[in-house]
């Protein structure tokens, strides 16, 4: 490790001395590898959406629009009402988590509504991920939240309204307490 560190310091020193000019990655990094990413490159991949709403794009969607899109693009895997499957059940299960037959759905389990936008755009539909427009994603989010009894039928989802939604299981998560099993 010492040898590598010494080499790195030498390289860094040379970089500062020899590469005087516009400040860039090469001048600042210890090893001078990689290059500055452009805004265009970052924007193309920067798709995450966080609970405070950061990352939500412009656009809007309604429950009614979402019902049509869900029937066309989602019901094949999740069932007409989001409960029938064959893939993940999305609706219902409220109050079931502490029973012997818990049903984990968007309504019963998911803590943040923003995660819906992130995940639907990122990974759905399963056969064509990242193909939906922002209006389509907002509409699906609206329909799924309405089906779960979380927003009214006339609600509109957009970058302003979505982060304000309080999910029923928002406070249902705890941090890792392990090791938690007593040694006999």
């Amino acid at each position, binding site marked *: 490790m010492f040898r590598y560190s010494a080499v790195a310091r030498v390289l860094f020193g040379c970089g500062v001395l020899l590469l005087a000019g516009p400040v860039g990655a090469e001048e600042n*990094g210890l090893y001078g590898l*990689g290059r500055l990413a452009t805004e265009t490159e970052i924007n193309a991949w920067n798709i995450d959406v966080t609970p405070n709403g950061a990352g939500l794009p412009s656009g809007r969607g309604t429950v009614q629009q979402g019902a049509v899109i869900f029937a066309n693009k989602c019901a094949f895997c999740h069932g007409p009402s989001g409960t029938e499957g064959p893939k993940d059940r999305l609706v219902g299960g409220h109050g079931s988590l502490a029973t012997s037959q818990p049903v984990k759905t968007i309504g019963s389990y998911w803590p943040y509504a923003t995660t819906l936008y992130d995940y639907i755009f990122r990974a759905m539909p399963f056969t064509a991920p990242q193909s939906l427009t922002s209006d389509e994603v907002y509409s699906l989010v609206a329909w799924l939240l309405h089906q779960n009894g979380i927003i009214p039928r006339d609600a509109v989802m957009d970058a302003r309204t979505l982060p304000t939604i309080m999910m029923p299981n928002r406070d249902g998560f705890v941090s890792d307490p392990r090791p938690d099993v007593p040694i006999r």
Partner: protein
Amino acid sequence: MNLFDEDMPRSPTENGNMGQEPRIDRRTWLTGAASLVGATAAGLLAPAWLPAEEGESARPTHVPGRSPSPYGVRAQGETIERLTLATHSLTPHQSLHGIITPSALHFERHHNGVPLINPDRHRLLIHGMVGRPLMFSMNDLVRFPSVTRTLFIECSGNSGHEWKGPAGKTVQDTHGLMSTSEWTGVPLATVLSESGVKPEALWVLAEGSDAAAMTRSLPLAEVLKNALLCYAQNGEALRPEQGYPLRLVIPGWEGNTCIKWLRRMKLGTAPFMTHEETSRYTDLMPDGTARQFTFVMEAKSVITSPSGGQRIEPGFVEIRGLAWSGRGAVRAVDISTDGGRIWHPAQLQEPVLPHCHTRFRFGWRWNGEEVLLQSRCTDETDYVQPTRAALVAARGVNSSYHYNAIQTWKVDQAGQVRNVQV
């Protein structure tokens, strides 16, 4: 199938190729001491006197062999395989030796298939709360000072069906979502330093370039300790299904954090709360709360031979298995042949490495009576692998992930080995 089944082996009845008796013939005699039964003299002596089959020579000392080949393949007739399902495949630990899992048999779990990636076009972007957002090519990454470590990766759903009762027939079913490789890559800390991480950054999002854009938020201080950006596995480039050309490997943490096909890391002040760390990889407790960010895979062990589906004969049997801990190195493995009343220390095969499978062995003489075989791992933190009863008492049976209870194999008077819970 429910929401979480995809991270666990299917129940045996759903698997076309489960439940087969171990096939014993001259070609599979190497697959484990316990499986020798049935081969008897015929199996062991076969190479000397059975007639030659197609593709082999009856008198190999009398004919020239084949020429060197550019890329080797295993011997003809060696047929052990992963058990493949829709979203994952399982490592056949009942047939493996030592601690390294052959790359071709390393378990798989992917969330929307294995992408085809051109390494010349692949890039890693580091951005967010950094001084300089940087883009790295694979050539850039390989030039950094690198390290090699032998590490297990275990899916958090490994043994997951055992929560609800003895589900798997073989150790491949019950413990096949784990494997060990020698991984080579660049310390994550080295690469992040190039971007100048801001002091406010506490979490990092890692994202893959697969069709799931698989994503996990990771606590920065923890992953700076020993996470690697790996480009090689067992001495060669990663296998496509293991994240080619670049995979994040976090020693001892659940496999889903080891993001494959890694293309983006974003620094932030808080977890990003993606699908994977909210609705999927969280552990539901009996009171209805769920544990979140349960990264570490706790100490665990399993006897791989004799194991479910195999049959043994009276006399000497070497009990063999694997032990591991996400918190460090294995300190001891104990063996019980009476369902956990009396424990005997097993021999640990060197090397005993942190965050790595450790092979254990225990010489035993079976007298033909019914027995319950168990192994129990203690790691360097003095954590002791729990009994099933203790684990279920603490967590119930609906938490889906992180099942690390002591595994019991029952040997009946006929020598047949079955998965049971005591």
